[in-house]
């Protein structure tokens, strides 16, 4: 029976190729569409979360909810050895994050101050990579690095001094004056407008938080799963500390992703409808072309069920072939755009930058998507092939032979 089906496929190569091609393109379209969507998010999470904020952060319990410097953690009281001993933890990165009002001349602007130690920071805050002018600093240095947007706003350059006015630990005044040692371009457009990077110890001093930090970013080993590491850290007795995953830190990112994904799913569903009718078209065409053949086969004694089964088998083979070819063909496309993202320009770029995303379209190379959509299209194909089965079961051999 399988042999029969196999032969039938090769009997009319043109028709087979059309069916395979239809399925293949359906798979390609669906996969490319979803790959871009998932890829953009994957990249965003990796870039913004993984490279800048970290997948896991440790704070004093309750800090994230009210972000008050009164809830900074005493670094000497943190058992970092125990935290570092947890599997998958590569290093702990201390940060001192707060707000400040910046002055230069008669201009003022609210800004986000981040006290960091570049020597241990995440890739997104490796100053040497993001500097467009000037130099990096060490944790004890006395120069700051400002984001490109901020430098533009104040119209300042290297060597100019910015004044800081803010509030520190337990209401202490947090004033400072620091010369600009470098200007950096942050990939996150929002940060690029207001971020000031300051040597860690200077930020501690300015905010009257000596030996304290707002945040310990947990840098995880490359092959570690942050969820596993997070659970292990929570179990390691980090008393009085909160260990938060990025999903808890930035629930708005998750919400945005969900909204976007829902939109994507609607789009893909519409695509599936179109795909279904295209496939139905090829099946109808096939049945119409083979009316006479079916009639003859039935009249010379072939059972209708057998005939229907063979036809179904043929179709399944074709569709499966198409799906597999589609999944395979789309793979290089996915890889290409992962490493060569589409740069958006013009209005689209501005619109996306408003949402603080990098205006580039990446793809994901996750094979799950290919498999998912290949399978869905395969089942649609099988469903549509049932048309042929119904037609065959209702077949009147005499009439069909006459047509």
């Amino acid at each position: 029976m399988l042999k029969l089906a196999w032969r039938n496929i090769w009997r009319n190569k043109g028709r087979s190729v059309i069916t395979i091609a239809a399925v293949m393109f359906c798979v390609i379209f669906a996969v490319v569409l979803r790959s871009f969507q998932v890829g953009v998010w994957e990249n965003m999470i990796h870039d913004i979360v993984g490279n800048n904020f970290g997948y896991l952060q440790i704070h004093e319990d309750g800090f994230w909810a009210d972000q008050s410097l009164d809830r900074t953690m005493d670094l000497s009281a943190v058992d970092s050895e125990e935290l570092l001993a947890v599997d998958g933890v590569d290093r702990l990165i201390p940060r001192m994050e707060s707000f400040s009002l910046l002055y230069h001349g008669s201009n003022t602007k609210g800004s986000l101050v981040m006290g960091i130690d570049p020597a241990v920071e995440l890739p997104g805050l490796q100053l040497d990579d993001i500097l467009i002018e000037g130099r990096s600093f060490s944790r004890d240095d006395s120069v700051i690095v400002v984001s490109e947007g901020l430098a533009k706003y104040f119209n300042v350059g290297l060597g100019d001094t910015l004044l800081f006015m803010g509030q520190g630990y337990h209401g202490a005044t947090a004033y400072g004056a620091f010369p600009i040692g470098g200007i950096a371009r942050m990939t996150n457009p929002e940060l690029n407008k207001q971020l000031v990077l300051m040597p860690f110890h200077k930020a501690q001093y300015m905010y009257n938080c000596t030996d304290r930090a707002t945040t310990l970013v947990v840098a995880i080993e490359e092959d570690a799963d942050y969820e596993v590491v997070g659970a292990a850290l929570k179990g390691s007795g980090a008393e009085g500390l909160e260990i938060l995953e990025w999903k808890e830190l930035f629930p708005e990112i998750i919400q945005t992703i969900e909204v976007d994904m829902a939109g994507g799913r609607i789009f893909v569903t519409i695509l599936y409808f179109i795909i279904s009718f295209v496939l139905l078209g090829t099946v109808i065409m096939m049945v119409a072309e083979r009316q006479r053949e079916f009639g003859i086969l039935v009249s010379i004694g072939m059972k209708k069920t057998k005939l229907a089964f063979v036809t179904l088998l043929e179709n399944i083979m074709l569709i499966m072939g198409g799906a597999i070819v589609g999944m395979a063909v789309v793979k290089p496309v996915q890889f290409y755009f992962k490493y060569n993202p589409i740069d958006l320009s013009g209005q689209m770029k501005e619109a996306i930058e408003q949402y603080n995303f990098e205006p580039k379209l990446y793809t994901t190379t996750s094979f799950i998507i290919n498999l998912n959509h290949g399978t869905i299209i395969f089942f649609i194909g099988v469903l549509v092939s049932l048309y042929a089965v119904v037609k065959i079961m209702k077949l009147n051999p005499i009439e069909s032979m006459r047509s």
Partner: protein
Amino acid sequence: MKRILILCSLVFATTLAAQDATAILKKSEAYLRGAQSTAEVSITTVRPGWQRTMDAKLWNKGTDKSCILITGPKRDAGTVFMKNGEDIWNYVPAIKKLVALPAALVQNWMGTDISNDALINAGALTVDYTPEITGSKQVAGADCWVLELTPKPDAPVVWGKIIAYVDKDTYVQLGGEFYDEEEFLITEMQASELTNFDGRKLPKVIKMIPAEDPESYTEIRYSYVDFTTPIPDSFFTKANIKNVK
């Protein structure tokens, strides 16, 4: 006619009482302030599990000139707050910048429980408030007048009402309660350890306790007060603010 007379005398009586209250408050403040005064204090802010002490020097002259210089700890040393008439300035040596502050600052001063207002307008309550005697009360073992102070219309103040307890003997203010516009108690003031400073008996310790969190408080401890050394008017000027020592 009789009725009118009674009414008149009633009005007169209340006016008299108000004048009395004003006189008491003025006398109390004058006693505390003198013609001018120089003082050294240490200000300790206490929070559950944490505390900080700042040292400061204070200068006062008349009802409208005052100056505060932070002398310690090192990171805040040199910060100056100065009031002269309507103008209030804050000089921050860390950024070498002079900042003009609004007359009515709601926030607390440098993370303490002392309101900016209480600090800068200290000893000048009669300028912005109308006092009224509402009774007597024993406070810290002394018989005190209870004065209720309501802000004058359009006065640039942050409190809706102040209750002050003034010792009938010495005219020293031994306690106070500060209410907001909705009459909620915000801060309570307690004075204690009456000590002889330059010939005057004054409280050595003043404690400010926020009503919301009784575990927290700020304590101002006077170590030195000088009522005799004259301070020139030129001391309280913007030009001098960087030279205050």
